[in-house]
């Protein structure tokens, strides 16, 4: 059974919400914290509601709507989201008031909107969707688990169209705390030079990307979601390489069948070493594209990577801003997306042109 990517929507630090050729005018930044380029949310959300919604809810709702619009669907059978951090802004607001006001005189709005399923719940509410609704919150696997759940349900036959997506936001609090863990660059770096950085640390990013998945294709459909797999805490690079070989074999292909490798390189010299090892072992002459210099690092960044990979298949070209190495063949039939988050969460998505 094929599972088609019939529509996509993406809100990110790039101009991804407005359509047009992929990364035609890439935005370059020189900072360690990237923020989304916000579209006019009034297109999808009532003005009164916009004021009460946090950024992650708005970007999630917008990306969800964009993906449904491109797929030509008004009501999916299921909504599945992945978010590692959830609704950080409302969580921070409620926590701050709770601490500062010694647990007295609190109001419910921030608490209500702080739960991790707020985005999926809001999408269901806005669409009037009574179908299956789930939210995965597992760090660098949040989005991948959402995809896997969608694939399993589509194969079961209990749904024909599923909306699946991943999103995370940065807040001032979260950035301050995560910075103290030493995961970001100490000084601003030009994003187009990030992937050649000689030292450790990456840049923080955020965004939302949604996919309208279906068991039948739509007029503009470019690719099938052929497979998704995750690998938790591999002991060494050999385990990653073995996992990829097995993953490709499960989908009846070999590294030679892959036309383009899309990787989650993030400019941290230690973390990027794994991509070097994998490319050297399995894809030494393959063209490679990357995406975290465009969207920043966050646990659901692979959703941006998948959005980009799908667009590359649709356009049959790798935009200059995404090229990391080599030249993709004329016909881009299969893309392997390989991402890892902090060396512990490795994920693999196989896309096939249709």
């Amino acid at each position, binding site marked *: 059974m094929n599972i088609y990517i019939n529509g996509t929507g993406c809100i990110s630090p790039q101009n991804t919400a407005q359509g047009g050729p992929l990364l035609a005018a890439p935005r370059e930044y020189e900072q360690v914290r990237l923020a989304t380029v916000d579209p006019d949310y009034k297109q999808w959300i009532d003005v009164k509601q916009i004021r009460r919604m946090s950024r992650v809810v708005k970007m999630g709702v917008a990306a969800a709507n964009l993906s449904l619009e491109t797929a030509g669907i008004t009501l999916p059978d299921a909504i599945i989201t992945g978010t590692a951090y959830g609704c950080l802004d409302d969580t921070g607001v409620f926590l701050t008031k709770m601490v500062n006001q010694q647990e007295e005189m609190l109001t419910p709005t921030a608490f209500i909107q*702080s739960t991790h399923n707020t985005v*999926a719940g809001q999408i269901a509410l806005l669409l009037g969707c009574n179908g299956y609704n789930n939210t995965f919150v597992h760090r660098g696997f949040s989005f991948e688990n959402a995809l896997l759940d969608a694939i399993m349900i589509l194969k079961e036959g209990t749904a024909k169209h599923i909306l699946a997506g991943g999103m995370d936001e940065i807040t001032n609090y979260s950035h301050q705390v995560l910075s103290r863990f030493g995961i970001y660059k100490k000084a601003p770096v030009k994003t187009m030079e990030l992937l050649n950085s000689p030292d450790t640390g990456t840049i923080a990013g955020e965004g939302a990307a949604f996919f309208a998945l279906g068991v039948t294709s739509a007029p503009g459909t470019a690719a099938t979601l052929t497979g998704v797999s995750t690998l938790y805490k591999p002991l060494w690079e050999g385990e990653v390489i073995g996992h990829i070989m097995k993953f490709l074999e499960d989908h009846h292909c070999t590294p030679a069948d892959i036309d383009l490798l899309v990787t989650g390189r993030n400019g941290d010299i230690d973390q990027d070493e794994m991509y070097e090892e994998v490319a050297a072992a399995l894809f030494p002459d393959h063209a490679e594209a990357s995406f975290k210099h465009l969207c920043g690092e966050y646990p659901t960044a692979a959703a941006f990577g998948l959005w980009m990979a799908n667009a590359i298949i649709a356009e049959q070209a790798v935009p200059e801003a995404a090229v990391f190495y080599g030249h993709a063949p004329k016909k881009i039939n299969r893309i392997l997306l390989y991402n890892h988050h902090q060396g512990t969460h490795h994920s693999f998505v196989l896309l096939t042109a249709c």
Partner: protein
Amino acid sequence: MSEKVWIAGGGVISGIGLDVPACIKSFRDMQPGMAAMQYLPSVHRNTFPVAEVKADNATLADMARMPENISRTALLSMIAAREAWQSSGLDDISHYRVGFVSGNTVGGMDKTEDFFGDFLANPRGGRLHQVAHHECGSITELVADMLGIRHHVSTISTACSSGANALMYGARLIRNNIVDVVIAGGTDSLTRFTLNGFNTLMILDQQPCRPFDDTRTGLNLGEGAGYVVLVSDSLAAQLQPWCRLSGFANANDAYHQTASSPDGTGNYLAMKGALDMSGVQPQQVGYINLHGTGTQNNDVSEGIAINKLFAPHFPAMSSTKSFTGHTLGASGGIEAVFSALAIKEGIIYPNARFEHQMKELPFSPATAFSTGHDLQHVMSNSFGFGGNCSSLVFSKA
């Protein structure tokens, strides 16, 4: 999709016991777990009764064999997950392809809220180890790493239905041959964040809660963890499984971010969907473990949906939250264990403090603990914020 998924065992830690036998004894003795707060420091400690797990973090850490300074949510999770595994009859965990799917609502918030006071005073203040496991997924990984589970780890957060959705996803992982065994359920410890959040919604009862009673005025929060061990059909053949997870469904009420629709649309769709998957007729269900929080809104919506689906053959039903409190992300897991055990042991659990018939409903909950019932099918309901409604059906064979 035809493959059957079985429940090979279960583990619970809650306000009424540190393991499954202790919880069952509390039901038998009609000893609910609500009391004044002993372990959670809060200005509301004398206002709202809660069902705390009756042990401090040092004791829980000893039981879990984990460090005392990690989140209580992870300690509770570890204790219940290990009990579940040990009850299953499976041997060394490394012999199987195992997944761990756990629900929780606020991750390591119990530590984050301690961190936050110092952090607000000074952005470099607060000890970082207190927020190292803030993420929901991090709690799951602390336990997966202790248990030696690597084939699949995932975390679900759909508010009060998180634990039930973990069972559904776990069952699908087995049916799709991704793993052979899944420890599935949920965990949550009490936090000031949650307590104050529910207080702003004005749905906390200052007395022990009275689910499905006409005079009910709100819920009591609880804490704990509960997990079942799901196994494939082929593995079940080598074990003595408690029962089978025969049906499940998840629907969205799509009515309001926190309130249930008056006619219980999502509740009805979830229960109906679960029965449809199991192939069970409503009159074949012997017992319903209600979501039954004790709020005005939940109980009437749930009751109306049950009335619509089951009338005129109402099974025995009760809310075990009248003993354990509402354990949020854990509740679906804890109540799945109680429901699976109900089939295995023929138990109908009591609904504590029920006195007044709800005027909207033609049925009332069971009020006494009883055993010896021949229960062929049991339903467990979990409904939550965000409109997330889930129902599970357990069957004897």
